[in-house]
């Protein structure tokens, strides 16, 4: 194997040499011919076979020597400015292949070289950084999924075991059974959401754009939560422009409203206020959903559209951290825009902007 690479290297070297030889020969022949023919015309020198052949031999050796010097020079230059950085980059890439996402390639010093390789190195480092952050996300994601899935299962298993005790008083039996029902309901919601999100993420879904009455849709979605807000005695404030139409995918957008309303109602304390406003201008329809709930800190705000991320772990029992990921996905697919304003302890406002005419 080693011998083989050696032969290959020698062949390569000869190849380089040959290229340089041809190049130098071409240049020198052209120059000499021009030079000699000019001389002959002006000085009227006659050329004999003997002195041509002597000059030709000398020139040939000259060409050979010059090519050799060029080849050696080029090989050294190549080693320093190309092979070294390439080697560093490939070594780092090997490490990434093996799963080490912490490697970074040092940029070359700029003296004497062009910065092509530095551009590659910059790009490479960016890629490595991105990979390492997705890797942490993935590990977090797996940890979160298994936590979310296993907790309700554990609850059900435990209470199931408890229910098997003989002579269990009636009130305990009812309590345990209720705990099992609640846990299974949570699990069911979670699985429904995972399946929905999976569908949105993995299948090429083409949104069905149709013009429809947005005001009506949002109102109907809000009315779906009537029981929930009555239970919490929330005040509902509405400022709705009638008959605002948009061109979007109605079924997907209803996912957005349902999740935003569900969150607003979930995170607002008793007797709080949830407000809805729908406004429009020529280009956009703007839906604002505000609550007077616990608010979102800037740090949580950055990650709240991530899957399974929950701002406040004490709210863990109420949700599964997929709602806003679903919302974001739909917003992206339909080409709408969502923004959040929030103040801790005061409340949150989600603003969704939908283009009225998607061309």
């Amino acid at each position: 194997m080693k011998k083989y690479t050696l032969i290959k290297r020698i062949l390569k070297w000869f190849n380089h040499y040959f290229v340089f030889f041809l190049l130098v020969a071409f240049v020198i022949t052209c120059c000499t011919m021009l030079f000699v023919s000019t001389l002959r015309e002006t000085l009227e020198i006659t050329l004999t076979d003997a002195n041509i052949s002597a000059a030709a031999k000398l020139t040939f050796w000259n060409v050979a020597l010059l090519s050799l010097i060029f080849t050696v020079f080029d090989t050294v230059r190549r080693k320093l400015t190309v092979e070294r950085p390439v080697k560093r980059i490939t070594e780092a890439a090997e490490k990434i292949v093996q799963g080490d996402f912490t490697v970074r390639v040092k940029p070359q010093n700029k003296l004497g070289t062009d910065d092509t390789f530095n551009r590659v190195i910059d790009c490479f480092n960016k890629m490595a950084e991105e990979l390492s952050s997705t890797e942490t996300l993935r590990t977090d994601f797996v940890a979160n999924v298994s936590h979310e899935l296993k907790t309700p299962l554990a609850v059900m298993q435990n209470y199931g075991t408890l229910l098997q005790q003989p002579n269990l008083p009636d009130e305990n039996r009812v309590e345990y059974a209720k705990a099992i029902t609640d846990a299974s309901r949570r699990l069911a919601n979670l699985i429904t959401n995972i399946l929905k999100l999976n569908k949105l993420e993995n299948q090429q879904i083409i949104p069905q754009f149709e013009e429809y009455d947005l005001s009506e849709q949002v109102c109907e979605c809000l009315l779906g939560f009537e029981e929930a807000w009555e239970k919490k005695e929330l005040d509902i404030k509405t400022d709705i422009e009638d008959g605002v139409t948009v061109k979007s995918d109605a079924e997907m957008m209803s996912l957005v409203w349902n999740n935003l309303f569900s969150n607003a109602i979930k995170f607002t304390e008793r007797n709080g206020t949830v407000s809805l406003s729908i406004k429009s201008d020529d280009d956009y329809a703007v839906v604002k959903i505000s609550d007077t709930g616990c608010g979102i800190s800037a740090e949580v705000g950055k990650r709240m559209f991530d899957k399974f991320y929950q701002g406040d772990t004490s709210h863990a029992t109420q949700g599964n951290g997929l709602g806003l990921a679903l919302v974001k996905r739909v917003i992206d697919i339909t080409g709408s825009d969502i923004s959040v304003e929030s103040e801790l302890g005061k409340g949150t406002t989600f603003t969704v902007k939908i283009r009225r005419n998607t061309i």
Partner: protein
Amino acid sequence: MFKILVVEDDRELNRSVCSFLNQSGYEATGCLFAEEAYDVMYETVFDLIISDIMMPNIDGFEFVKTVRTLNENIPILFMTARDDFASKQRGYRVGVDDYMVKPIDLDELFLRIGALLRRAKIASSRRLEVGNFTMDSDEHTAYLDGDEIPLTQREFNLLYKLLSYPKKTFTRTQLMDEFWDADTESGTRTVDVYMTKLRSKLSSCDAFEIVTVHGLGYKAVIK
């Protein structure tokens, strides 16, 4: 006692739904396949059918289609794992009255069955009674304690709709779409005018109340 037929191929789910319904005061019969359901229906008259979609041989859609050719009025409720819009659309097209996605909440099932049976009764008797207030949809007349209350046709229809679905809020647009011509020039606020008229005409009625829901729409609440 109302008789309910449950068609569901998962034995455990079928059994749990049936025993829940039996405990809730209905008489439930469970069938694992549509073929079995046809046999049972031959012998007994049911008041309501609960059916799955994904079943071997004859699926829910086909089952409902067949049932609808024999009985136009029996309330049918789909209980299925399929939550895509296409399935819902197809379900309502073949003639189901309600659609629930698995895993279903048994308490909610109970409420929906109650509402379905109530509406079926209203539809079959063409009469609606709330406390001392009666509406007859054949004669288009309304009575409070036996005295007729004059209502215009549209007022009557609006009220009949609200009382057929008590506690359900209808948006103005939903009501407009149903009771006004499509090319009407009046805005959705016209509904408000009608509601005000209805309230004043029924001011002496204390069996129910028409409630405005936060600028979203209207509902009837039975007291």
